[in-house]
């Protein structure tokens, strides 16, 4: 009997056991529901906490204090700074370090933004310009014509220039990015934990002893990882597919092509991320002998996933174009969650994706080797938690 057949037998048991469990159906339904609520909640949270960073250049530096005051009265949280010159400011806007660059004289302000100007900020700036114009009109008081003054003041608004054409689908893309980030985080966490729990179940029930009399440790590990991975892939496909169809049918999404693409990229990154995390979860699980100890031994691994998720949500919704987002989205522990988000936003270049995939594959290979060693050594040891150092040493 070949190893491939053995791995398939083990995987098939996992598939049957999990797919037949009621918890799979309930879990799928609940994750759809959680997802919807989660995204709604997150979007309001992020909306409320937003700080708008404005850079002032040249004579516009004079509006620093009034702008801060005006913004506060509009309920806008503005952080004002002075930039050396206009070109440095524009670079900062492109990088996402500044939300808006303001130049020109107080009576004729020019605003440079990445895609579009925040409406509250526009109102604040307009008020400042109009006050300035009004002040000039009042200075020439002998020729005062009220209608003329009001007309001039009303015409005085800031001049806005966008560095990039605003993307009308940006909000939809951002929503999809956040959904795919959340879905991948949940899937990786859930199925990684299942792998660890499966390993611990076999250890704590001692069934591993007769299993290892028939199959090699790596065959048992590979079968478990493959089986649960397929279950997770099935669930993600169902949840994602239902989500895309519902969103398109209800006109929430107007870009079905991008939605399907996002889902497909998401599935690919699920597979890569699952292979990355599952073997680590399995190795961690093999260090303990009782289910009660599973959570504590998994904590370092789940922490990395949580960090990736929190970073992904924050970076993608606030500074999707920053170099920090680009760098983190290529690094293996974060890539499976960040990269599909960037792909949904359409901000990832082909090179970014290629580099991230290569780094991912290399680290999957290295981790599988390492985790396989730890697992093979630790899986038959019962009793207290096995220190990692001991599991790595030659048995």
């Amino acid at each position, binding site marked *: 009997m070949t190893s491939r057949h053995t791995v398939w*037998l083990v995987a098939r*048991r996992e598939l049957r056991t999990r797919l037949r469990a009621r918890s799979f159906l309930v879990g799928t339904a609940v994750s759809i529901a959680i997802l919807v609520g989660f995204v709604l909640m997150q979007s309001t949270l992020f909306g409320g906490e937003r700080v708008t960073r404005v850079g002032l250049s040249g004579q516009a530096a004079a509006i620093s204090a009034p702008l801060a005051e005006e913004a506060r009265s509009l309920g806008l949280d503005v952080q004002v700074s002075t930039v050396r010159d206009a070109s440095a400011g524009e670079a900062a806007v492109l990088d996402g370090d500044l939300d808006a660059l303001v130049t020109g004289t107080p009576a004729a302000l020019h605003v440079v933004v990445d895609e579009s100007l925040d409406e509250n900020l526009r109102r604040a700036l307009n008020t400042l310009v109009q006050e300035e114009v009004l002040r000039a009109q009042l200075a020439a008081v002998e020729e005062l014509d009220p209608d003329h003054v009001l007309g001039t003041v009303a015409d005085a608004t800031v001049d806005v220039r966008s560095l990039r054409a605003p993307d009308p689908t940006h909000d939809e893309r951002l929503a999809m990015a956040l959904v795919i980030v959340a879905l991948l985080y949940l899937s990786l966490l859930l199925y990684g934990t299942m792998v660890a729990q499966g390993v611990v179940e076999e250890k704590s029930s001692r*069934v*591993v*002893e*007769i299993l290892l009399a028939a*199959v090699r440790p790596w065959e048992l590990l590979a079968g478990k990882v493959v089986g649960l991975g397929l279950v997770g892939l099935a669930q993600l496909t169902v949840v994602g597919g239902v989500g895309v169809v519902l969103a398109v049918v209800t006109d929430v999404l107007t870009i079905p092509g991008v939605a399907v693409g996002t889902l497909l990229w998401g599935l690919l990154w699920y597979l890569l991320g699952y292979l990355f995390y599952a073997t680590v979860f399995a190795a961690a699980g093999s260090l303990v002998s009782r289910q009660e100890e599973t959570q504590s031994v998994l904590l370092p691994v789940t922490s990395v996933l949580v960090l990736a998720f929190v970073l992904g949500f924050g970076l993608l919704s606030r500074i999707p174009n920053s170099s920090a987002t680009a760098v983190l989205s290529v690094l293996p522990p974060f890539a499976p969650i960040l990269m599909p988000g960037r792909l949904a936003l359409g901000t990832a270049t082909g090179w970014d994706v290629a580099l991230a995939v290569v780094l991912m594959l290399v680290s999957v290979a290295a981790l599988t080797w390492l985790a396989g060693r730890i697992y093979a050594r630790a899986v038959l040891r019962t009793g207290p938690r096995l220190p990692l150092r001991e599991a790595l040493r030659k*048995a």
Partner: protein
Amino acid sequence: MLEVDGVTKRFGDVLACDRVTFDVAAGELFGFVGGNGAGKTTTMRIVLGVLAQDAGSVRFAGAPVEHAARRRFGYLPEERGLYPRMRVLEQLVYLAELHGAGINAAHRAAEHWISRLGLREHRDTELQRLSLGNQQRVQLAAALVHDPLLLVLDEPFSGLDPLAVDVLVEVLREQARAGVPVVFSSHQLDLVERLCDRVGIVAAGRIVACGTVEQLRAGTGSTLVVEAPDAPPDWASGLPGVTVLGVHSGQTRLRVAPGVDDQPILAAALATGRVRGFTHHHPSLAELYRDVVGVGSR
């Protein structure tokens, strides 16, 4: 058929197996006897490939044991364990397949052992819902379900009710008759004596005696029970070639060295007064075991 040759295994400072050597022929029932921690389980796990030995070799049918050969062995581990949430039939079919059986053969064999071991009403029950005794039966079926070429059973009788013990004895004899070498360990020495063709006694990781019970007896002489109610407790102490095993309500148990004439013993007994009994016994395996391992009852 199974040859264990010089198998040595060390855990830190503990030498669990020290050049353990024995062989089991086709169709032979081999009893593995020894105290807790003597090295029985470690030896069995090495035979099954669950542990790797530091030195020595295990051969089966003349060839060093590889993964493919081990897959056809049947194993009942000392620490029992199966999937608690898996149904009995499914579990046995799965294990048979893992051991290389085709799906149809696996189903047939699983059904066969389920009815043979009296589990038919539980075939679709989750293992964790069965009584401990029935879980033991499933565990036994798991060792047998793939039609093994060698059976290695670690304490198969512990936790079995008397009826299940009878079934197991029958099954083991049947397997041996079919030519399967059977190795099992047990603390129930009377059972081992009744069942086994040959016995290996292990102490502190070494095989200290190995052979048929007759062979083990050969060097030890016999046990003589003398019933002399009037005799003082130490009446036999000075006799050459005689060891006093115990004195209990007028009965004196003596170990008589091989080749020693028993007539002077009878004469000495008669000298103390009445003699009501004078009987030779073959030492039981339990007595032999105590002799060999050295924790005597004297």
